[in-house]
């Protein structure tokens, strides 16, 4: 069949033009709409749920208040040394360590250990009773207290 100009023009107008417009513009809009829908779905699915630990931000080992509180009324025990420091810090958490040296009789010192063991959020990392041979009845107690603290 001979292709006449009129038929050709009509075909271009009714078939060619829509195809060109689709390829040039509408297909891009459609692909953008597809992306919009997939992003909308993934936005709902990807809502991040935090799995972080809930840790107190209060550093109870910063001062020796805690020890003094435990030792209140305990005249036979004296504090030789108290040195808190941040041992490790990462991921928004810190491990605080306090070196405590007490001197007194064995039983009161053991009570202090017992009290400290039952303190919430605080653990003991090292306990060491030492006594020099001789007549001196007093014992030295070296303690390492640790606490996990959240960074503010």
């Amino acid at each position, binding site marked *: *069949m*001979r292709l*006449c*100009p*009129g*038929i050709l*023009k*009509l075909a271009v*107008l*009714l078939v060619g*033009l*829509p195809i060109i*417009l689709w390829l040039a*513009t*509408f297909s*891009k*809009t459609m692909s*953008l*709409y597809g*992306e*919009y829908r997939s*992003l*909308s779905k*993934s*936005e709902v699915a*990807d*809502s*991040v749920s*935090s*799995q*972080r*630990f809930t840790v107190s931000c209060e550093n109870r080992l910063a001062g020796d208040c805690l020890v003094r509180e435990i030792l209140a009324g305990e005249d036979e025990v004296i504090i030789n040394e108290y040195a808190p420091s941040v041992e*490790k810090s*990462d*991921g*928004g*958490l810190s*491990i605080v360590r306090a070196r405590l040296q007490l001197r007194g009789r*064995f039983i009161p010192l*053991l009570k202090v*250990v*017992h009290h400290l*063991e*039952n303190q919430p959020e605080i*653990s*003991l*990392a*090292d*306990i*060491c*009773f*030492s*006594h*020099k*041979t001789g007549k001196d009845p007093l014992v030295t107690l070296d303690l390492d207290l*640790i606490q*996990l603290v959240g960074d503010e």
Partner: protein
Amino acid sequence: MRLISKRILPVELNGGTAVVQDGLAEKGDIVILSVFGSDVSTRSCDDSDPVLTRIQRSDDLYWTMYPDKICYVRKAVVESSLNKQKGTYVAGVAVGEVCNEAEEHAKNILSTIDWKRIAGDSEMLEAVAGCIFHRVLLPVLGFWLVALLFNFFLFSDLDRRVSAMRLSWQESKREAKAEKEATGKQRQMLADYKTMSLPKSSVAIDALASVVPDGIQLTLLSVNSSGFRIKGTAKEVSDITEYSSAVNREFPLLEIVSIDKPTGTSLYQFDFRMMK
């Protein structure tokens, strides 16, 4: 709107002049000329008439055969009238002595024009296609213009939204990654903390201290992540043995690191270690 329109166009020929009424046909119309008037010649039908055959074979004449006669007219005269009707397609010519006669025959010709005939006639098809093209050009272009405008606004809006969502998605992905890293570090910190923490030991210390025999003096009692350690002095080895037996009842994993008596001293020294 009809895509194609078929019309009968009356052409009156008088004294060599063709008169066509204006406004009856538009550009792109398929027309049947209904030619009549004083310039139309007529000849009776007679099979033996040689002129009749010549008329029918002539390329210069339009003719229409009736049962009793043949009406004919010169093409040149008729075609001169079509100069005013440019853009119309002449699908047939009906020639008659009077208007009614020509129009009646033109109607017959008109009724035979259908899509099948148009499709079979390439010239007519071209004319019809051209006619349709001219009629639908503006509506189609208008439609696509409106569609393009709508598409432009839609695309702009979607693009704005998608850009915002992409940013938000990237941000949340970054946050999720940071959150994962932080959670991993926190887990490690928690594990380190648990490793460092000692179990409650005051009761065990009390137990170890309460079974110390009279002859023994402890110099060290420590607890760390490796376990318990006891050091002390004794006058007699039997006291150490007695104490180790007592400790062993509480701590089956007792390890006697050393029992010795350094030179120049009167006391035995011992070193015990208990695993957790």
